[in-house]
């Protein structure tokens, strides 16, 4: 399989995604070609999945992700997504997915207006998707966040739709899986940390699974998301 990690000017989690995806593929006996795709590429060939990594594409100028959505590669990513092929956007990648309209809503400044880097708990809202099939029902994952603008916002109507159609992927929660305002790090609506598109082929999330993908880094819960995706592609 071929996994394309898109490099925008200012992406900075591209290396972390590359190392974690390729290592986890290998550890799970999957043959995967994981490589970078430069954002100016308009004809990069076919990929089984695109990863939009974290970072500060275009320096977060104008709005996070607002300029990156106009990069030539985004036409290709959109066409790929429209065919029902998987896309995962992490942190800045999530912001780009929202800006490009592949996912609804927007990411506002954190409630306390500061950048926050720390481990948080996430409740997996459903485990029947290609991104979460290795998680138990409502499994609590320990995965870090690192963002200044991760406060998920959608208007009431959109929010209702997300909830009614079960499109919330992860919510900030306590270690026991309770969703409370106290453990919401950034003020996001309904403690949302990540969402799916309607077909659940696109996942956007603020936390960084690639930073919690091996035991030496405090948590390896992020593996479950990455390996779920890799295994489901291989199927």
């Amino acid at each position: 399989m071929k996994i394309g990690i898109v490099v925008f000017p200012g992406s900075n989690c591209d290396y972390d995604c590359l190392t974690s995806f390729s290592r986890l593929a290998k550890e799970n006996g999957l043959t995967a070609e994981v490589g970078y795709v430069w954002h100016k590429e308009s004809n990069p060939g076919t990929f089984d999945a695109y990863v939009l990594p974290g970072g500060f594409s275009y320096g977060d100028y104008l709005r996070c992700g607002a300029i990156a959505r106009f990069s030539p590669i985004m036409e290709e990513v959109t066409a790929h997504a429209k065919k029902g092929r998987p896309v995962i956007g992490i942190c800045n990648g999530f912001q780009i997915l929202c800006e490009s309209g592949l996912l609804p809503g927007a990411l506002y400044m954190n409630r306390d207006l500061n950048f926050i880097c720390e481990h948080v708990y996430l409740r997996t809202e459903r485990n029947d998707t290609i991104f979460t099939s290795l998680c138990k029902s409502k499994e609590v994952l320990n995965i870090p966040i690192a963002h200044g603008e991760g406060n998920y916002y959608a208007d009431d109507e959109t929010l209702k739709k997300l909830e009614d159609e079960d499109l919330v992927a992860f919510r900030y929660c306590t270690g026991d899986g309770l969703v409370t305002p106290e453990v919401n790090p950034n003020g996001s609506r309904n403690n949302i940390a990540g969402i799916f598109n309607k077909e659940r082929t696109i996942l956007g999330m603020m936390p960084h699974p690639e930073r919690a993908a091996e035991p030496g880094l405090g948590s390896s819960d992020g593996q479950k998301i990455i390996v779920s995706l890799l295994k489901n592609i291989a199927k």
Partner: protein
Amino acid sequence: MVESLPKDPLITPELIADHGITPDEYERLKGILKREPTYTELGIFSVMWSEHCSYKNSRKQLKNFPTEGLQVLIKAGEENAGVIDVGDGWAVAFKVESHNHPSAVEPFQGAATGVGGILRDIFTMGARPVINMNSLRFGRPNSGQVQQLVDGVVGGIAHYGNCMGIPTIGGDVYYDETYETNCLVNAFSLGIMKIDEIQRGEATGVGNPVFYVGAATGKDGIHGATFASTELTEESEAKRSSVQVGDPFMEKLLLEACLELFQTDHIVGIQDMGAAGLTCSTCETASRGGSGVEIDVALVPQREANMTPYEILLSESQERMLVIVKKGREEAVHKIFEKWDLHVVEIGHVTDDGLMRVKYNGKVVAEIPAREIADDAPLYDPSASKPKYLKAVSAWQLSELPQPGSDMTNILMKLLSEPTIGSKKDIYRRYDHMVRTGTVVLPGSDAAVFWMREADKYLSLAADCNGRYCYLDPVMGSRIAVAESARNIVCSGGRPLALTDCLNFGNPTKPEIFWQFKACVQGLKEGCEAFNTPVTGGNVSFYNENPEGAIDPTPLVVMVGQIDKKEHITTQWFKKEGDAVCLLDGLQDDSLAGIGGSEYLRRIHDLKTGNPPCMDLKKEKALQDALLKAITSGLIRSAHDVSEGGLAVCAAECCFTAPMEVESEAVKLGAKLDFTSVGSRTPRPDALLFGEQQSRVIVSLAPENVTALEEIAKEFGVKCDLLGTVTGEELEITLNQGTLIKAKVDDLKKAWRDAYKNAAGLSE
């Protein structure tokens, strides 16, 4: 023929003085040129001979530092940063640099460009920066001005480092009156590379083109280096234009483009444009290459119309590099920078006449011998005299302090609530400290530990300096700075390799200040020799002074060490109920028992006096050797060195500093400790609990390993006291069967966690 421009001002004694050039220096300058300078040339001399660039007051002293060692690949002063060997063909480049003055005037941009500047020093060496740290000194947080400074400086550092995708994994912060209007912002960066990828800042090969790459040049930062070389006054505000504005996005592009360039063999040299911008990079590359460089500044990309050659040469606009390209490879170099949407312009070429020749639309506006201006700056040996306050300091006796009451728990709480001692989480959670997935010990332990994935090597880093100790005894205080940073490395399971320093002082032309400087250099030198850790570079920041006086001398040390095996990585917090707690004590003797200069004396008794703790470097080395042997033998579960706040604070921190994955669920372990054996060599209980006597480490280990630890301690002549056991939810400390301290770990932790908020009056 060198020509003045029509609009150049007349060179008068006042203009010369405004450029910070003394009459003697002006004569020296004319001697080098063998004529009067043009206005442009005067500007060039003023920045190159500023304290910041020339080290004219400090250079003679800095020669005393040990700089050699088997591990050293590039020595201090040779290039933009020192480089050391970490094995298997891998090397690291690292350096710390101050950005104190800019941060005092414009905290956010000042601190941000401090980070940007040090990063360029690292990647110009060919290394990819993978670690940032910083060392900050502020006034007491109860003033709104200090809170604004803290917020601005931390915000600026976060802004730049986070955007660059380089984790900020450690550092230190002190809050003391001495830094009230002179905050210190020292930024450190470390990069990794293959030994054969090391780049040089040399201009060689006559006819090779000289390229300007990166951001366009504006009028920001003109005379930044000169600004940094004077005291801060009311008028400093008016020099705000001296502060540069940073664009981390631009720097990220520049970094990636440069690293791509280094994978080719298209270039002979590269140098960043930092202090003194284009001027400094041009004459330094020519000087190192033993050549000349000719440039036409009209070709330089400019942000503003009608900039003069003087302004273009002196601008400290950020995110720019000078690249010396091999002739015939121009097209290939163009391609790389154009891919990253950066300016790339050929502005000149290498010559063989040894001159820095600057043209402006073909007209020669400056022509200066490159080697002379770069290397023959005036050198001074300012007079030094021992400060008068030291007499009273050294006469102070512990007996002058009233005997302590019984309320030791309360004092412990107060010390844990000191922002200097308390948690720094509010600061480091604003830094991305996890990107690049190598931060195997999160911020909050004695040393930061980073796994360099590319090389599969573990580095340990620690920043230390207690300015109050240095004020009270500069030699002792500086020895302690080196010793403590080395001790922190050893506590994490590593071997200290080399260090970089940032020497922050007042005005060197005042004899008492220069005496402090010389004594600190002496203390650092002794420390370096004791641990075989050469100085690989750094920075001197003088003039940290305002009308009320100078800061406490603050020779900051950042030590870099290496941990040989993953299994050796050790952290400071207790791990397991039932473990034994021991104190390893190298010194075992100090007449003041570490009370002089302590936080206890300063904050509880409001006294800034007494001889600081004693540092016997031989005994310290023995302690560190014993500890490292115990760790590498697999005996130790946690190790935390005794520093500010003494033994009681150290023991408390062992109970509750485990990283908080989620605050409410952090591991908290209590301990029952009997200090009777340590107490027998300490004059009184407050000294026992809060004295900052050096060369001591609290370790925890499985009870069955205590005998083996005692044997190792004996072998190295180190005392090992069994203090007690990790147990329960309280910290209880007894002496001769009497209780000294008894408190819930939860309460201790709360005081420690909210220290800054409470001190700043910000708690809800």
